[in-house]
């Protein structure tokens, strides 16, 4: 992608509606390959990675133009590598990053070269990550390919060290090759997961946004599968939720588009 940016669109924007504002430029320290972004509506901040500089950037919620980040987590003590995914948990004041097959956890206000407060090892991470603060769960997606498909692992939120997963959703019935950006609806316990198929393929087929329960375990097909000709989805990689309007937002990389679906079933 030749030009890095974060564009902020009105919720009701459609087609060629221009963004309300754009964040871009050298001072922002952004790069391309932002494979996750999280908005913290309690503290009015959003967080993204810069995987080319092994950094996590925290911006003011209203940042625009070439505004600089408020805080940066970066440096050898952080153990952050090239991860491009993350989660923010405003209830427990933590930022979580899948890294090296595990998860590193920082205080939400961490800044500079600081060590993680907690580490989870050997969690098969590499895909999406989301926290359910109500049920106290940490949910991890894993990357994979057609020969070695990924899945979803559900941990206790505070799992650390070599703690094992409480439950694992994987297998041929799940249809998961890669489980990338994820969200959870704490009130109903549904997990939303993007499954864009194998990397490096123009049209991998079998892609979808799937919905599972936080209680699912094993080779379970998605309870709902958002895919098909009406959806127009090709390679969904990003998902976010608008509970107040019962909508699901999907970022599709091949369409270079953001799509919004009315999806009351999960709320």
């Amino acid at each position, binding site marked *: 992608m030749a030009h890095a940016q974060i564009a902020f669109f009105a919720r009701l924007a459609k087609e060629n509606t221009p963004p309300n504002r754009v964040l871009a430029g050298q001072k922002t320290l952004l790069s391309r390959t932002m494979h996750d972004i999280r908005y913290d509506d309690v503290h009015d901040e959003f967080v993204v990675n810069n995987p080319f*500089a092994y950094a996590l950037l925290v911006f003011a919620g209203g940042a625009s133009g070439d505004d600089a980040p408020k805080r940066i987590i970066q440096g050898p003590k952080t153990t952050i590598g090239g991860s491009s995914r993350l989660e923010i948990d405003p209830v427990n004041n933590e930022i979580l990053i899948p890294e090296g097959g595990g998860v590193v956890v920082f205080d939400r206000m961490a800044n500079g070269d600081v060590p993680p407060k907690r580490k989870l090892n050997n969690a098969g991470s590499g895909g999406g990550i989301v926290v359910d603060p109500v049920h106290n769960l940490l949910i991890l997606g894993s990357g994979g390919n057609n020969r070695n498909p990924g899945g979803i692992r559900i941990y206790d939120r505070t799992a650390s060290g070599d703690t094992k997963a409480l439950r694992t959703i994987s297998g041929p019935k799940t249809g998961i090759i890669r489980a990338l950006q994820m969200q959870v609806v704490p009130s109903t316990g549904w997990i939303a997961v993007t499954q864009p198929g194998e990397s490096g393929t123009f049209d991998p087929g079998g892609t979808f946004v799937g919905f599972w329960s936080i209680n699912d375990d094993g080779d379970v097909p998605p309870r709902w599968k958002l895919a098909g000709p009406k959806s127009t989805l090709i390679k969904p990689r990003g998902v976010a939720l608008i509970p107040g309007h019962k909508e699901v937002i999907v970022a599709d990389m091949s369409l270079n588009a953001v799509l919004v679906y009315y999806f009351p079933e999960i709320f």
Partner: protein
Amino acid sequence: MNRASMAAARQATGEPQLVAIHPLPEMDGEMCQWEPAAASANVLLTALAQDVHVSADWETKPPGNADRAPARIIKDTYPTYSAIAVNLEKDEVLLQDENLFGIKVFNRTDNTPPTASFTEPKRRIAGGGVTKMEFNCGLYVDPKTGDIYSVTNDTIDTLTVFPWNAEGVMKPKRELYTPHGTFGISVDEDAGEMYLTVQHQNSVVVYPKAAAGEDKPLRELVGPKTQLEDPHGIAIDYKNGLMFVSNHGNAIVEATDSGKFEPPSITVYPLKASGDTAPLRIIEGARTRLDWPAGMRVDSEHGELYVANDGESSIIVFKITDSGNVAPTRVIRGPKTHVLNPTDVYVDLRHNEIWAANMGNHSAVVFPRTASGDVAPLRVIRSAPIEKKALAIGNPGAVAYDRNRDEILAPN
């Protein structure tokens, strides 16, 4: 003059005007207390937990397809140009379309009138699985044969080569499997060597120009001494045997396996540099105006280096001998220029012109080679109505929702 007279004398300006000032009434009740963030977090948790009805149907819900049409789609329906090249023999200009994918070909002298919606390309090479063009960002045209070299920045990891008159959906005449994250391209025609920058490994890889399939690079410039830091553009000075690379400054410190932010830079190497070779010179510092420098071209005849300066929305020109914290010789920038987030440039010495491809406004613009300041372009090739702002959504891998502002956040 009393207030009534002042009001009568007030001139209508069409703008808001101060009409009166009244003191606020005295506060006699308690003011709302500022709520600390920790309290807000607890409120959030309470709110989330209040309506929990998880077990309602998760065990009984059968798997189901939920195919449905989107309520809304945010998508730029016009081309957005990431790279540019000119076929001087055929008098054509080629533009990489990174939004709808593919390459659009125009007559070099096409000029979209301000009142026209857009200029129709004379030919298109389609994006997609057959042409293997997706997030296509680098472009080179062979000056003798007119062959078109297209670099892919993400997902497909394949450089494709097409004949000059390629059109529609067609297989490339040649494919080369490249490292992930290639961006810029330059070719040493005398040596028959092709140079590519690689963002993901902070390197420059050099292939035989005719490389195909699984062919390996002849050599690679990579390592901590190179100071390659998220390299983007690459330009070659055949005459003086130099290689110029633009860097965004996203650096990796190998010794500690950690990251670091460095200033943007242009690093200069001997043309045949390989391995962990330090740059001969570095252009870097506040005076350079470098701000996400992207595509570059060298004009050996006049000893100049042209840079698409994405973040500043400018074209900046250096001497090829420049070093350190040096100001550009010329800057093309401002509202008259229509330069907006340019990510590539092309210098046409036959017609003494400098081109830029804009990611910000669906257009390519061309100026006299020595243009400077806020000047109108000689010509504009525009592919959308003039009032349509480019959304520049690219390879969106994630999305978020800001409840406070009712906004959708879309990162590239």
